[in-house]
């Protein structure tokens, strides 16, 4: 595991898709008027024959993708996560999820990573996609996982929804890290609290774990790239060794990782207090930058520390998170 500030990569997804599509002729690339933003300008340049402009017509694009999948193609459908899930939900349900077709829906710009306001912030995409039978739901944490996710999902049975950060993608893991779609990734074990994170919240969770560890808290950290099917067994195993659980997701606390963890531990009869870091059942807002929103809506390292400290009943003020320092091209969580 690397240390912040993290180096970043540009277009790890776009490159991985082109690499795989070069020897998998079934792969088609559909874009909903966000080609460069979804890194598939590379595909458009290099494999133009299998690139399709869906235009700004998501409902049509999803039903179309379902039919393409019925004919033996593997369509990868690209737009922002919010437009990939909310708007064409009925089409995804009926044309893709119900017939259990191998359409890969790639939703960029998760949660409040965009300053574009409520219309552009995918804060319920995981909840929506988790609710659909047959759907696999993935939220990868860094460029090392992004590089692997295309090959990992291409042959999965049924539909897959993948959340992907847009722009500069931080490198958190070492190069030998293997993205595992069946097992949650236990990064460290501990006995006081289990911090369970997905996607962009892994970086602040690791930062919080470092601070808490220095202040005598024994912290377990679990990265959950696959929200569904959910690896309840691993989560319950880690949680059973601790006294409390904190989940962290760049998403509403309703219906996403926090809900999945709550379901898993309660079904297993594990009575542990749980706190869910995420958007607290609220829409966010437009702003100049994403970090401001992470801070304002409680998706920060400091909030993770504060909530954990209080949940464990530790005395005094919680310790302070280090300032997020990053040079141009680097990434540090707030």
């Amino acid at each position, binding site marked *: 595991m690397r240390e912040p500030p993290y180096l970043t990569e540009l277009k790890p997804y776009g490159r991985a898709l082109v690499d795989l599509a070069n020897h998998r002729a079934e792969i088609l690339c559909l874009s909903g008027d966000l*080609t*460069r933003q979804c890194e598939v300008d590379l595909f458009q340049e290099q494999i133009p024959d299998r690139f399709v*402009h869906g235009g700004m017509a998501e409902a049509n694009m999803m039903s179309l993708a379902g039919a393409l999948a019925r004919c033996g193609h593997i369509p990868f459908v690209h737009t922002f996560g919010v437009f990939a899930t909310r708007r064409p939900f009925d089409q995804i349900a009926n044309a893709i999820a119900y017939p259990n077709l191998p359409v890969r829906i790639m939703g960029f710009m998760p949660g409040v990573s965009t300053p574009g306001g*409520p219309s*552009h912030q995918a804060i319920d995409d995981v909840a929506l996609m988790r609710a659909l039978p047959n759907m696999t739901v993935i939220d990868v944490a860094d460029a090392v996982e992004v590089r692997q996710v295309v090959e990992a999902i291409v042959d999965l049975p049924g539909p897959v929804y993948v959340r992907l950060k847009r722009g500069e993608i931080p490198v958190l893991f070492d190069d030998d890290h293997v993205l595992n779609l069946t097992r949650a990734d236990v990064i460290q074990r501990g006995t006081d609290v289990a911090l369970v994170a997905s996607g962009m919240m892994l970086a602040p969770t690791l930062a919080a774990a470092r601070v808490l560890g220095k202040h005598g808290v024994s912290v377990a950290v679990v990265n959950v790239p696959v929200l569904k099917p959910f690896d309840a067994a691993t989560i319950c195993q880690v949680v059973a060794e601790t006294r409390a659980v904190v989940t962290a997701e760049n998403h509403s606390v309703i219906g996403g990782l926090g809900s999945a963890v709550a379901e898993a531990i309660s079904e297993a009869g594990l009575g542990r207090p749980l706190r869910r870091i995420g958007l607290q059942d609220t829409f966010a807002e*437009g*702003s*100049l930058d994403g970090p401001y929103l992470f801070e304002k809506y409680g998706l920060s390292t400091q909030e993770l520390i504060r909530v954990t400290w209080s949940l464990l009943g530790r005395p005094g003020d919680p310790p302070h998170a280090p300032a997020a320092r990053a040079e141009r091209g680097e990434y540090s969580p707030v």
Partner: protein
Amino acid sequence: MERSVRASSRGTRWTAEDRDELALRIRLRAVRMVAPQGFGYLGQALSAAEQVATVFTTARPGIDRLVCSPGHYVIAPFAAAAEMGLLDEELVSAYGHNGSPIEAIGTERSPVVDYTCGSLGQGLSAAAGFALSDRFNGSAARTYTLISDGEMEEGQVWEAAIFAGHFGLDRLIVLLDANNSQVDGPIDTITTIEPIAEKWAAFGWHAQDIDGHDTASLAEAIAAADAETARPSVVVCRTSTVHGLECLPSDADGHFIKLPPELAEAALAELTAKLEARHA
């Protein structure tokens, strides 16, 4: 209704020249709003400046409504309102800042307009809802609605078009900004939306096709739309996302124009000179 457009004072007569100057001021204001960030939705203001200037000088304050369907365009109504003294200077200068209610993409808390939405293709349905409510209430308010040609790719636009046509919502006046621009490039390289006016006519609308940078044509087209008593109206406004700002590079990305400091300075100088020339 308290958020309705309060565009011009009652009884004000606006000439085409006045409207041209307002359009110029909208451009200048939009440059000033975008410049601090170095990029933004300037192309939308350049494209829609004359349409917004004409609506703001035609709409009846406190009576008519304004729907700005594509939330990215809301910079233009903000700029117009600021130039007409309808929007606090301090608020306008916080456009796009952290914590500011004057967001770069329109939201539920955006002032000036009655409705806007950053998820494209939904505003016409809301406009039809306003027009239907006005009919129920016996109000003759007009609902001016800005939509963009790219939005025509969304199916919901046509659901609204069928609805408004069927119900003959004649107080609905749509200005359709046909700038042939979407994120992925010129619309006609992505898909085919032409013939635009004929499509709307086929849906039962009174359709006109004009130069969207000509305020005299715009005022005439709106008057003709207002004279309609049985059909909703659409004015297809042929425009460009770089219109009226010669210093922009010809390949500027119309959806999201980059305006580094030197270019912003050149833009301010160019537009200020044009404004001064009008008063010379």
